[in-house]
């Protein structure tokens, strides 16, 4: 077993652990932190079903962003949904062809392949705004540019392996399927592949400690996930109940 394979195996075990533990910690924190007051941005749905639809519109269509700014919406939406297709395409590197969930994996391949370009175009648009629009330039910090650089580098290196410089993809699949069963298989030593995988590991490592927390965060945003029914139903949090017990509502 080469040192390279072992190094990357360790890297991905660590990155996966950090990603999962970090996200579970953050999601638990958001879930456990009380929202003592009703603060949905109105007009808001008056039923729980309505809230589910509102949240779905936000997550799938970025509806508030659409209202806000068409350029950010186009680039942002293009990037995120291309990324989703690309991720789905990557299932082929983890799922066995004999698996019952394999059937959709070949179907998604052509979409996932070309989505790489849409992803890079979206990222390019977002980055251009950070440089060209004075207001967005003002609010952009080094980490905002680095995040875009990281995503562009991941997308570009991935696309390169598909369209320019192939790697031994069967061996790559062997390596990752091996990781799933805790057996380290040889990983090809192509530089583009190694860069791609290292950057993906970095992305997984920083996910729970960066602005990428917007992904779980939106589901916990009280302005979007609360039902507008404060008069009909008394809303309380644990600490407000305790405060009341102290002083009483008299």
């Amino acid at each position: 077993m080469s040192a390279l394979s072992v190094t990357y195996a360790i890297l991905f075990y660590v990155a996966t652990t950090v990603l999962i533990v970090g996200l579970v910690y953050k999601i638990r924190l958001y879930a456990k932190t009380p929202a003592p007051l009703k603060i949905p941005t109105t007009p808001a749905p008056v039923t729980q079903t309505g809230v589910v639809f509102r949240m779905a519109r936000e997550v799938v269509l970025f509806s508030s962003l659409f209202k806000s700014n068409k350029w950010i919406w186009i680039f942002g939406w293009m990037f995120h949904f291309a990324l989703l297709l690309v991720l789905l395409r990557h299932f082929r590197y983890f799922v066995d062809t004999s698996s019952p969930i394999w059937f959709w994996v070949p179907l998604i391949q052509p979409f996932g392949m070309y989505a790489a370009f849409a992803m890079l175009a979206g990222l390019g648009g977002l980055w251009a705004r950070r440089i060209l629009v004075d207001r967005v330039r003002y609010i952009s910090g080094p980490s905002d540019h680095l995040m875009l650089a990281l995503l562009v580098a991941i997308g570009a290196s991935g696309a390169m392996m598909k369209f320019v410089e192939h790697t031994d993809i069967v061996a790559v699949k062997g390596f990752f399927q091996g990781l799933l069963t805790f057996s380290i298989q040889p990983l090809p030593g192509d530089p583009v592949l190694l860069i791609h995988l290292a950057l993906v590991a970095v992305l997984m490592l920083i996910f729970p400690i960066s602005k990428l927390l917007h992904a779980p965060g939106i589901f916990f945003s009280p302005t979007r996930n609360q039902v507008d029914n404060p008069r009909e139903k008394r809303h309380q949090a644990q600490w407000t109940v305790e405060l009341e017990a102290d002083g009483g509502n008299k």
Partner: protein
Amino acid sequence: MADFEVPELKEYIEVPKYKDGTMAHSSPYIAKEKFQEPLGYPGELIENWEEKAIEKMGELKGKYRSFQVFLDACVKCGACTDKCHYYLGTLDPKNMPVARQDLLRKVYRRYFTFAGKWFPKLVGAVDLDKDVLDEWYSYFHQCSQCRRCSVYCPYGIDTAEISMAAREIMASVGVGQKYCNEIIGKANTIGNNLGLPEPALADTLEGLEEEVEEDTGVAVKFPLDQKGADILLVTPSADFFAEPHVDGLIGYAKVFHEAGASWTISSYASEAANFGMFIGSYENMRRLSLRVRKAAQDLGVKRIVFGECGHAWRVAYSFLNTLAGPFDFLDPNYPVPQHICEYTYDLIQKDKLKFNKTENDHMTLTFHDSCNVARATRMGDKPGGQFDIPRAVIKAACNNYVDMPADTIGEATFCCGGGGGLLTDDLMELRVKGAMPRMQALKTVTDDYGVTNIAAICAICKSQFTKVLPYYGFTMDQIVSVHQLVSDAIVLSDATSDDADDSGEEQE
């Protein structure tokens, strides 16, 4: 007229290039000890304030999910950067919602996040020092908590939540705002923000009764502390004498009179506005809300109705049940509380009010959706009732009505520029500049449709417009109360024998 430049009104609202530091000098007076201590805050900046402020920040992010999630979730996409009226009016980049949040977020990152502890430069994290505190004090008092940014944020991040938390943190280390804290003190001790004691209030209401009887020949009552009344009216104390607020109060009284309702004002809870929200203090907001509960219990009323007031309606509609509920001692057939517009609208629907709309024919009206009514509350059963119901009331009383451009009303409405605890003379420049987008929209309908007057349902909006309209070439009396329009057009049924005949048509 002003020692600052009043923004020019253009054809439409342009998104300006930013200019650094144009409002860095803007800061309201700091509260003295006598206004701080009764609210439970230290009298002046405490010794170890940095440590205590961070401790408070930690406490708040544990108590408010909004605060915790909003601090983490922002991706700096820029969607909010052109949405704040203070940014549009002042060009100061720190008035872009995300930049305002970042003033606090950079400190949160330094003390509470891995990246900020180890790579502060990379993520723009800084230590909390006096300069940062001063900047907080300045720019968190340049946010009217209007929530316009929260409509447009893809994650619903509401800068109001951050501003409230920042103000609470500052007050807790001894840096409170004089305007808000002095007012909360008055409401706590006297019962209203103006410090109007019971005898003065009684006097004022008596004066109004005489005035209305003189005008109309009808004995419309303005009851105070009447035990056993059905309805408790809680209204902003500005309604008792400020113009055009008081004309709105006369309107409510006439509506109650026509409905044959038994109602009363309470001298103990003679204030609808709850400035506890402005300073982000749950405890203070609750203490003020409990006065309404106590008044309702002491007077033995069956319903609570709130007068025209924006942030007040937010605390009433969204928070009152939480803060001072449950209201199981009131009549369960009515929502608690109700807005006066809901009350009047119901009567209009049931055909119980008669209007002579021609009384308002000398005006062409438009309606200013007050920020907190629009984006933090509802009226009626359906989402958006907060837009439809006040308009329906206006249209029932007026023939000439035009809306301002669609991107400046409804959920997209621009704040008047004076909300959220900023309605003080020491922030005049901010107030005038922040009113620019609303004035712009008003100018558009003035030029295109000959609009003469703008109606509002918020005491702050009304006071603010009275002050800022003249800066933009309008006159102060162009702002009117919605129930002032009702008051002018309503036909009082026992005014003349003709009207008495009509009363036979009433149903139910």
